[in-house]
């Protein structure tokens, strides 16, 4: 090829090129799922363990005479939804770590790939894996406890959508910190989402939290999701106010996390961090 000068692409061609690069990266991570048995175990093992542990714990609590209507929906449903959030967050940060561990970050970013395309690819991948995990967990819950996760009906969609958004946000923050401070911060991929758990009212209502913690919980979208889920499980319908608050918070946080990633990426270019992330 001996072009005189590199000709800029048209807007349409750039859009198609972006879509092609995103597709290529999603393909790469899906191929990894096929080639790396540890990735399959990581994707499904914890999900299934959560279903087993929380399912039997719920049966035990319910059998002990505790006054907990819809205990399966409250505990097992919460465990499944929390797992989806955790999975979404982890998929974003671990996909980035995959390139760090494979020492392929330089190879990937020496291509025309843009950082937003990379982020879009790993978030899309999260959706694919979320669908797989959700399917496996819902099937296990039905098979083991005759619990139908989809009995929440339409309410499940906005709950899950909000947890996906929050998962992406936390994953992007982990990614930014790993890029800034190096692969030794990779532990954030697993620990950062867990930090939100005490304030997310996953297995207990917000009302049992101390006042200060309750104030923190108000700022955590997951708290509104799980509170809303409990209301739906109790037959109280969809908590639209909670969902609106969770959505608003999520959109703000996701925008801020995206800005953080963009800022850290520019910093990485200035300081030469990309070739040094190990």
């Amino acid at each position, binding site marked *: *090829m001996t072009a005189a000068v590199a000709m*800029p692409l048209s807007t349409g061609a750039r859009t198609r090129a972006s879509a092609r690069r995103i597709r290529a990266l999603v*393909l790469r991570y899906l191929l990894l799922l096929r*080639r790396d048995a540890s990735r399959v175990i990581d994707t499904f093992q914890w999900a299934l363990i959560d279903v087993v542990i929380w399912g039997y714990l719920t049966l035990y609590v319910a059998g002990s005479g505790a006054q907990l209507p819809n205990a399966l929906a409250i505990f097992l449903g919460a465990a499944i939804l929390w797992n989806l959030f955790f999975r979404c967050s982890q998929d974003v940060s671990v996909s980035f770590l995959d390139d760090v561990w494979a020492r392929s970050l*330089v190879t990937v970013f020496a291509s025309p790939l843009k950082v937003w395309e990379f982020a879009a690819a790993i978030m899309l991948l999260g959706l694919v894996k979320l669908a797989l995990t959700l399917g496996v967990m819902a099937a296990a819950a039905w098979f083991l406890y005759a619990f139908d996760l989809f009995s929440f009906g339409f309410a499940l969609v906005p709950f899950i959508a909000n947890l996906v958004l929050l998962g992406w946000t936390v994953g992007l923050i982990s990614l930014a910190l790993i890029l800034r401070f190096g692969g030794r911060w990779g532990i954030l991929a697993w620990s950062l989402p867990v930090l939100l758990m005490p304030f997310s009212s996953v297995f207990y209502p917000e009302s049992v939290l101390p006042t200060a913690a309750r104030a923190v919980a108000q700022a955590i979208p997951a708290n509104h999701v799980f509170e809303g889920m409990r209301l739906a499980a109790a037959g109280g319908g969809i908590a639209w106010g909670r969902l609106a608050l969770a959505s608003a918070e999520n959109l703000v946080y996701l925008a801020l996390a995206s800005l953080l990633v963009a800022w850290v990426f520019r910093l990485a270019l200035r300081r030469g961090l990309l070739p040094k992330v190990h």
Partner: protein
Amino acid sequence: MPPTPALPAFSESAICVRDLVKRFPHTTALAGISFELRRGEVLGLLGPNGAGKTTTLHVLLGLVQPTSGSVRLLGADPFADRETALRQVGFTSPEAMMDWRLTVGENLRVFAGLYGAPHGAVEQVLGLFELAAHARNKFGDLSLGQQMRAGLARALLHDPAILVLDEPTSSLDPDIADKTRKLLLRLRGERGLSILYTSHNMAEVEEVCDRVIFLHKGHVVAEGTPLEVSKRVLGSEDLDAAAMEEVFLRISRGAVA
């Protein structure tokens, strides 16, 4: 430092680097270097460890932003228009790996997508680098030499106009290294490739490069054909691998300023 030769307009060179400065918090990696890679030329970017070669390559590839100065790849700025600049470039380095868990064929398919390589490009480069038999092997199971060849195959997937090759034969045995050099020179002839080439093997440099640039402590300290550089540094009219080795040693030890 020799006077910087007048550089042509950006659009006339494959790579044009002007007054490139890169300062990191505790060091100056590049202190204002300028050079061009002409169309169809093989340019050796040489120098001891820490001279600034890798930083230069990283700037060219849009991985490290310069403090000042400019770079153009076929007239395009990799920081202002990544898409236009980098789709013209193929790159390989011992430090730039592919995923060890995927097969060679799978890795190449992924990069074919990233670069928009034409249909059939993967099979073509596998054949070109005699890797077809390893297409189903995991990248991590290949020998270092095979990994290097797979990296070269990746670099050529999208039929780039410019190749940036960082020590492309460093892990190859002499036979494969020789075949690889001949292949690169053949491709240069057939496709009009412009190649920026780094190596510590001076025999290779003398064989492959039309011109060389020596960097030392972030400065260009010598530039020209291997013969011109040898003449200037050694005052010798004879050029062979030993002479280039001596040039390298003198520059590395600061005997050329």
